[in-house]
């Protein structure tokens, strides 16, 4: 059936774990899909290295769309691309319908995982995770007009302004802040 074939093919392109099983034993990897023999044969005939390259290209395109929204975070955390790719290769995205641009939607999807990853890495700036959330939530609310909120331990608006001017705060003081993102503005107040 066409649906089963497409499910298997898209899963191979989107899921690194399935591709590893496919590379080791194609027929076993495809067992969960109800494929007819010609469909299985067609998938097994795709060169594994081409499939792998395609999967990486898909993730790179997603990253390109997300990276456009993160000019400040990327100054503070230039390794975010590597961190994102490692996560995205293992985490297929659900299809969606909405007003958000692909980059903003991907940012919201990646936010919990990458925020946690940045918070838990002592090599990253202490505010890097919150700055990432600041840019993602801001872009999402600018895109669809939905209000979103963020609680931070830092004065993120001031930090963002410093980073924009090329200054990377080394040890900013703790100043808990509540931020609210709307289509046309960001509001904040001390928490």
């Amino acid at each position: 059936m066409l649906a089963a074939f497409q499910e298997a093919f898209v899963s191979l392109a989107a899921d690194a774990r399935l591709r590893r099983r496919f590379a080791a034993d194609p027929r076993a990897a495809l067992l969960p899909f109800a494929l007819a023999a010609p469909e299985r044969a067609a998938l097994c005939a795709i060169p594994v290295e081409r499939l792998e390259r395609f999967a990486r290209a898909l993730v790179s395109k997603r990253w390109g769309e997300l990276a456009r929204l993160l000019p400040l975070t990327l100054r503070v955390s230039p390794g975010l691309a590597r961190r994102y790719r490692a996560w995205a290769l293992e985490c297929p995205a659900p299809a969606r319908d909405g007003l958000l641009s692909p980059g903003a939607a991907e940012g919201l999807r990646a936010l919990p995982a990458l925020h946690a990853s940045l918070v838990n890495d002592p090599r990253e700036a202490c505010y890097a995770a919150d700055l990432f959330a600041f840019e993602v939530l801001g872009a999402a609310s600018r895109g669809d007009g939905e209000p979103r909120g963020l609680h931070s331990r830092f004065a993120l608006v001031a930090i963002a302004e410093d980073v924009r001017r090329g200054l990377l705060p080394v040890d900013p003081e703790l100043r808990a802040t509540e931020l609210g993102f709307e289509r046309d503005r960001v509001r904040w107040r001390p928490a």
Partner: protein
Amino acid sequence: MTFLGAGIGYRRSHHAALLAGPGPSVLEIVPDHFFADPAGLEELADRYTIVFHDVGLSIASAGDGALVQARLARLAPLVRLARPVLFSDHLALTRSPAGIDLGHLAPIWRSEEQLDLVVERVRALEDALGVPLALENIAAPFEIPGGMSEPEFFARLVQRTGCGLLLDATNLLLTARNQGYDARRRVREYPLEAVRQVHLAGGLLDAEGFWVDSHSEPVEEESFALLAELGRSRQSLLSIVIERDEQLGELAPLVAEAERAARLWATYGSEARGRQPSSASVRSAEEAR
């Protein structure tokens, strides 16, 4: 049909310059830019001939079509607003039937069952949108063995639905390089009399020696040269669109690239059917004008 001219793909950073003019003859718009800002589309539609170019219908995907219906509900008001002369998407899938999203275009297995599904989708989309539809050939990362060739699939699709072909000359060229065949010979196998639009862009060679449709470079001479093979499209072609996403720069150089494509088409479309130009003969064609 009348050739409307050459144009460019709309990018947000050019919005003000497009309103200030002078701009291209045709503006190709990805509707997602305006789902949340229809007024921005209206002011462009007042000034330009619009074609819509979608990347989100996943027209080849099997499944219940709920996402397609949701997307059509967003598209329909924009179509009414901008009155595009053509609506295009890709002969590709971007998501699985159960809802895994790839975020980009994936090749299809060109089986009989797949053809039946695409025929059904094309008819439904044209009915729903009330605009002529054209489907685009993608830059394929690989072939899924055992199906029809892409030209045969398009030919049978056109025969059954009357839909148009958006021939991406650069996708064809880069796929030909990656898969090792002659793009000029290959293009003649497509149903060229159904080509409604042509895309031209610039790709690049990646570190692994694979050509990528990056939309980051000026259009290559070899892509321009493929226009000379489209003599059979003289009655059907509406527009040629330059695509650029990366290293975007100012509007004027893109408009100049579009104008160059239009000049070449004026030469090839009327006089040079069947020629096989080299880069040098592309330049000769321009000098002759």
